[in-house]
């Protein structure tokens, strides 16, 4: 049976500007899946963009190459990843005029 772990890296957090999730160690895992559960998007033309980033050390980051489709309404969105090395985070851009995006973000890891 393969080991697995789900981390809630943001919980009902409201963002009004760009942000990155906290560094998360995942060297033991062979596959990962991000979930963004958007609870609320306030403000005209509010958008959330999120791309996966990887790191050799948890300090310096680069794009992994995968990204969520641009999010413009509440709902559940997901992004699978493989071959990501030892660290993962999401780099997120919040667009729109006076935007507010309330989210839960989950990282699901599996051997």
């Amino acid at each position, binding site marked *: 049976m393969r*080991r697995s*772990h789900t*981390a*809630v*890296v943001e*919980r*009902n957090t409201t963002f009004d500007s760009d942000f990155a999730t*906290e*560094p*998360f*160690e995942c*060297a*033991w895992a062979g596959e990962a899946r991000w979930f963004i559960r958007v609870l609320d998007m306030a403000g005209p033309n509010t958008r959330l963009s999120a791309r996966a980033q990887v790191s*050799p*050390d*948890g*300090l*310096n980051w680069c794009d992994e190459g995968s990204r969520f489709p641009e999010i413009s309404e509440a709902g559940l969105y997901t992004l699978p990843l493989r071959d990501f090395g*030892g*660290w993962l985070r999401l780099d997120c851009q919040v667009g729109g005029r006076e935007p507010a995006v309330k989210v*839960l973000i989950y990282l699901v890891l599996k051997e």
Partner: protein
Amino acid sequence: MTSIEAMRTALIQSDPRLSKYNPLPRILCFDDFDDGVNGWTELLGNHDGDLDNVQPDRRDFRPPQISNLTFFDVGSHGAMGGNYALKIATRPRPNHQATVCKRLMWAGAGQVQLETYFTFKAEATFDREPRGGREYDGNYHPSEADFGSFTIGNDVSESEDGPRYHCVLRYVNTDQDGEFVQKWFSTTSPSPSTKALVAGEVKEVPDFHVTRPGDWREVPDSYMPLCYNEVPTKVNWHYLRWRFDLSTRRNVELQINDRVMDLRDVPVPVRPDPYWGLSRLLNFSLDVRTHTDVRNFLYADSILISVDW
């Protein structure tokens, strides 16, 4: 020593994973983090299904991680045994605390012991102004002053009639200004209940373990500089053995490496109200707290919990 005790001792001492521990007669858990988090999960305050209603001081204790202790300069350190350790990490925000807990029950009102090999580190930073007034000198690295504190604790509830109490012990490495303290402290008030916070009976404080911010008392004769090993990327594993007694509702002792502190006279605050639905509760907590905008980390190679019942 009886022949049965001698046999047990021989078995433990011949097992490379257990021989570094000193368990009480019954091992409840041996948590090797090469196998995952083993029940050490993020602590989260109570709620009614609406996560907006989690009280602020217990809303963001961060998920535990399984770490191979990889650093920017040397790569992977690995754990004391095997590759992986449990990692508890704060956000890079002053007074942020990360807390994990393990939830058990007790089957006898006797002694309980938690042992672990642990290490603590502040995240490596670059071009940062040193705190605490000490510059890098080749042997001293300012990173050591970026580490705030770590804490071990329990949560014991006996019945619906009470009592419920927490033995809580915090190693304070630095004060808020980055000056070294390096002593142990115990709480003088209990962690407020969600019910008391919701009712406004207690004002929320930015320190989950106490009712008021300053409610910590120095453990006598507890000055204990611990090996940080100079830079933020060198790891040495400290032995910790903490024993408490469910029959006296007190700590018994705390051992860190070769130092043993007798804690039987340290008062343990009791919550003012009994609690519904918590009969025989026996929880353990580990947390780490930063005083500045640098992430602080607490790692455990493995954890062994044993009892005398």
